[in-house]
């Protein structure tokens, strides 16, 4: 069959096709993550705007250059949302390329599972479709998962189809001195549990009576209602880096916040990252060589170094 | 049954197309969905497809439909089947696996592959010879001349007290090996049945072996002969109660085996003793409640659960007198399978290992098994196993 196409996508692909190093620019909220592109890198922008949204389908097709806030507002009108972290200036494509989960990944699911279909421009400027527009799909290899968190090093995403979810009626943040493990064990489906070494934060959402019941359970564990979550330190590390058995030299210093259930911690001063398994490094190298043999796409960026 | 078997099945370089004599409709009815796999004890023990119902049916098709030879691989796949028929209730397509396997066994027997069993199972039909041989065996055991453990034999009693009839309301089928080796179970069963105010009659001469083992080994002629004898030994209209699940299943299938109206009528009279007691539960004496009831794990014999499908009645009867602990292994076979434990000792032991861990998880004082083969097989692994009605009998005795 013919590839996906629209005038905006075609001109995006044409821009990528032109010679030289090329990177896609979003809201620059995490511009330095995984390394900086050389100065001569040409910057392109993905198409912006919601292309189609059928609330009864609970999927949305949106240009990768769309602001997440704008998408969120469009979906909110139908009482829905996508499972992307909402932040000022961040674009849909940027958030997916960086691959950081939202704060609520524990309850709402991982960012990597939000993406149903992606249309990207390949290193040769061809439009390639990965995945499919339905909520369930196992037609061929799952390239979508590979694109999330790839920092645009395998292809430059122009348009995506995301799964949407109902926006729950109620939600509150609570915090207290109880152990995050205890919160996780006692509460049925908290959307987020954060822990900074002393204080635990928990977010509850859902139907009003359920949130109230869960909140009173959390209160019995020593939590009180608060305005919101703590600010996250800048650097993302595997939560294992904070474990007692992690070697001291690699221990992060300063402030940290563990995002329970995602294996992730945010730290203000990461220690040196452990060397990844050489076999994993080889697979990264081979994937890059297969998808971008000339090394044109987002040069200088390394997903393995994306702290 | 097809008559084509005898020439083709015996040799590896079979000349004409070897027919196994399996009903073609039955053979075509498997859709290979695989839902039987976890319910097959040999698949659970080995994880190998040829040791599963789906694999075995596939192998049967290769031979019957595609002319593959009956070779050692094929026979190994067939002979490792316990014939527990656990696959049958699991099969959404209703594949009659048990009868297909019996057809294969019959074809193998026609091919002359059942030499010693043909001879060995003959003894079962001769009560005096069996009792005499058992007595010899018992003496030999006492003299440590027999490696009982390795052969999977229980401790055989030197002498047994004779059972006496107490009326004509119901028959109690006593069987062959069970009567020779475990007559005390019959005695207990008889007392429990009598406690409902029922008079128990005992079969006359010839009412020995039900023929199940012969049938499973494909020795159909012998099985038919024993069936006719058994029917003659249990005349009249009175219900026939059976306290061995394997024998009960065989008796209930006489109609199918012999294909006569008499056999049909006979089979209709047969009940597992627990099935009958559950139907007459109101006549069972109540427990006094003064003694602590034992905690009992009920092992469902395959022929009660998958063939007769009345295994619930064991728990129903027992629950009046004991705390019944369910096993969490979906009633998977224990590996006894009639003569199976003796024929395939290694597989039988690994199948049993799974059952043993389920029993251990259950944490009961004792295990109840309504089939002598299972009892012997489990007891050999050091498990305390009793017939369910022995347990009931003991509780009742205590109350008296």
């Amino acid at each position, binding site marked *: 069959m013919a*590839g996906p196409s629209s005038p905006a996508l075609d001109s995006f692909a044409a821009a990528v096709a032109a010679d030289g190093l090329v990177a896609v620019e979003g809201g620059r909220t995490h511009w330095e993550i995984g390394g900086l592109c050389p100065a001569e890198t040409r910057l392109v922008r993905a198409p912006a705007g919601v292309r189609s949204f059928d*609330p*009864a*389908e609970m999927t949305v097709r949106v240009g990768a250059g769309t602001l997440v806030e704008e998408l969120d507002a469009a979906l909110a009108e139908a*009482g829905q949302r996508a499972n992307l972290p909402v932040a000022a200036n961040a674009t849909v494509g940027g958030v997916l390329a960086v*691959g950081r989960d939202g704060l609520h990944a524990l309850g709402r*699911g991982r960012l990597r599972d939000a993406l149903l279909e992606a249309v990207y421009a390949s290193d040769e400027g061809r*439009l*390639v479709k990965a995945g*499919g*527009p*339905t*909520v*369930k*799909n*196992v037609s*061929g*290899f*799952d390239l979508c*998962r*590979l694109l*999330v*968190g790839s920092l645009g090093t395998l292809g430059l995403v122009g348009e995506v189809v995301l799964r949407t979810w109902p926006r729950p009626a109620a939600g509150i943040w609570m915090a207290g001195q109880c152990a995050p493990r205890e919160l996780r064990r006692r509460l*049925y*489906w908290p959307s987020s549990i954060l822990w900074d070494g002393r204080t635990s934060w928990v977010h509850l959402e*859902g*139907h009003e*009576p*359920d949130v109230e019941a*869960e909140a009173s359970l959390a209160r019995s564990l020593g939590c009180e209602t608060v305005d919101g979550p703590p600010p996250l330190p800048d650097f*993302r590390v595997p*939560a294992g880096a904070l474990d007692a058995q992690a070697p001291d030299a690699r221990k992060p210093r300063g402030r940290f916040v563990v995002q329970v*259930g995602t*294996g992730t911690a945010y730290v203000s001063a990461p220690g040196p990252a452990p060397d990844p398994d050489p076999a994993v490094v080889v*697979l*990264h190298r*081979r*994937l890059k060589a297969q998808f971008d043999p000339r090394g044109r796409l987002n040069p200088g960026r390394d*997903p*393995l*170094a*994306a*702290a | 049954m097809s008559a084509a078997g005898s020439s083709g099945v015996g040799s590896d370089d079979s000349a004409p197309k070897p027919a196994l004599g399996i009903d073609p409709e039955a053979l*075509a009815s498997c*859709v290979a*969905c*695989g*839902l039987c796999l*976890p319910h097959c004890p040999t698949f659970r023990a080995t994880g*190998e*497809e*040829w040791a599963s119902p789906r694999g075995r049916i*596939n*192998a049967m098709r*290769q031979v019957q439909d595609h002319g*593959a030879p009956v*070779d050692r691989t094929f026979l190994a*796949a067939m002979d490792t089947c316990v014939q527990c028929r656990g696959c049958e209730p699991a099969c*959404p397509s*209703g594949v009659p696996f048990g009868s297909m396997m019996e057809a294969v066994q019959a074809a193998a027997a026609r091919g002359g592959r059942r030499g010693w069993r043909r001879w060995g199972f003959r003894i079962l039909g001769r009560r005096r010879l069996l009792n005499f041989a058992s007595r010899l065996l018992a003496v030999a055991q006492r003299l440590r001349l027999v490696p009982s453990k390795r052969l999977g034999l229980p401790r055989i009693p030197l002498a047994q007290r004779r059972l006496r009839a107490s009326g004509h309301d119901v028959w109690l089928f006593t069987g062959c090996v069970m009567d020779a080796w475990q007559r005390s179970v019959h005695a207990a069963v008889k007392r429990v049945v009598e406690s409902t105010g029922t008079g128990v009659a005992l079969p006359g001469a010839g009412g020995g072996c039900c023929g199940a083992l012969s049938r499973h080994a494909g020795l159909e002629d012998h099985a038919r002969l024993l069936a006719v004898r058994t029917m003659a030994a249990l005349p009249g209209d009175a219900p026939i109660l059976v306290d061995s699940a394997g024998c009960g299943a065989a008796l209930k299938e006489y109609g199918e085996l012999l294909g006569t109206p008499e056999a049909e009528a006979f089979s209709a009279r047969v009940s597992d003793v627990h099935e009958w007691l559950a139907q007459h539960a109101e006549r069972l004496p109540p427990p006094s409640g003064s003694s602590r009831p034992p905690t009992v794990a009920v092992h469902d014999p395959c022929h009660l659960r998958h063939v007769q499908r009345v295994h619930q009645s064991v728990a129903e009867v027992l629950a009046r007198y004991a705390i019944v602990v369910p096993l969490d292994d979906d009633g998977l076979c224990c590996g006894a399978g009639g003569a199976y434990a003796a024929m395939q000792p290694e597989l039988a032991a690994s199948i049993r290992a799974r059952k043993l861990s389920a029993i251990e998880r259950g944490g009961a004082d004792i295990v109840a098994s309504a089939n002598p083969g299972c009892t012997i097989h489990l007891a050999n692994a050091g498990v305390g196993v009793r017939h369910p009605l022995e347990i009931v009998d003991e509780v009742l005795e205590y109350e008296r």
Partner: protein
Amino acid sequence: MRFPRAKEHDPLVADLKRALAPDRVRSAPLERSIMSRDASIFEGGRAGPVCFPLSTEEVQRCVQTAGRHGRAVVPRGAGTGLAGGAVPLEAPVVVVTTKMNRLLSVDADRRMAWVQPGMINLDLSRAVAAHGLHFAPDPSSQQVCSLGGNVGTNAGGPHCLAHGVTSAHVLAVEVVLMSGEAVVLGDPRGFAPGLDLRGAYVGSEGMLGVTTAVAVRLTPNPPTVQTLLLAFDSVDAAAQTVSAVVADGIVPAAIEMMDNNIIRAVEEFVGAGFPTEAAAVVIAEVDGLPGGVAAEAGRVAELAAARGASVRWAADEQERALLWKGRKSAFGAIARIKPDYYLHDTVVPRTRLAEIMNRVYEIVEDHGLLVMNVFHAGDGNLHPMLLFDRREPGVMARVHAAGAAIIEASLAVGGVLSGEHGIGIEKRDFMPQMFSEDDLDAQARLRRAFDPDEMANPGKVLPLGASCAEVNALGQAPEGVWG
């Protein structure tokens, strides 16, 4: 049926036996022919030696030995796949993981477990039930299918609507690559820096390597569950209700639909109490905390009643189990009507369900076949079952043609080829209807990054010519694959 000739002294078999153990390599013609099929309708398979490793190291040795002999490797779990993904083509070494069936470790606090690939899906949920946890993906074959196979096909199931398919429940996989190297993709805690190799691997149908261990995410058992049986006078009304529920902002734990033909077949088999006169029934299940469950179940019942449904609320766990037993027995129950079935699997946008169902009935009638529909309506995942008797001359051609027409119709309304069974052999040659050459080329690149010589399960998923690989040894779909 071709039988591979057993070589008396096959050096490959001898080497494999040395690498494993003599009794865990099977090479007799009958043993190979048994392994040449899975639960699909494909018959053209041909297995080479069949290996039963017990450990990662043994899998490595199998793969290395196969590699030394230039032979491809096909991983196989319980063999319940419906797309022919485990059907070996051209006598590869078949690596069966059923003996690797142990639960390696459970971390109840972190809600994860490491399991071997041969562990049965339902056995895992049972093993962790004491912790109040379960493994969410529940394919209809869950009592027999293996977790390695679940990873290979990115398996789904009724309860994947709210909680996601297998990929969302796999934290890490240990994989033996075709180089013989073992590597862990992903991280059992949930975050591994770098590309999501784990995500790329799940659903790769054994074409990137052999799974030797899986770190699974475990889901807490819901405190409240409400199951509803909705009976409708028309398929349209049932389909519209499903769309209406979704549009209402409800994501039930499961919404399953069955049409009249299958209702009657299942009733005869299990007697679940389905109304045999209904044109369609929908099983809707809502789970979670009591407030939400009450509100959403009530709303589902309202939406259904507004479309003329009679609503039955499952009163207790027993009734709920019976309803599900009816649903999950569907695939086999139909064999009481015809000995063979071809179970299809496409996905359409949920709002197009009613339309596509009618189209399926038309197609099947045009081809003179019988169809039964039982499917995951909540995510638009159709499962038309075409019933036939393969002994009937010419029937396979009609079955094939009807299948092709259903695929075409599904794609035409914006659907996809497969929702959960995978592509395998079955839909390999339909891939160009959904993907462009560039799209397929990208998938082939992913494959080559993991398996440059294309030695893992060759001949599946990617249509020939999709890979830039010069010559594909297979030529074309093996003769007899379509019976």
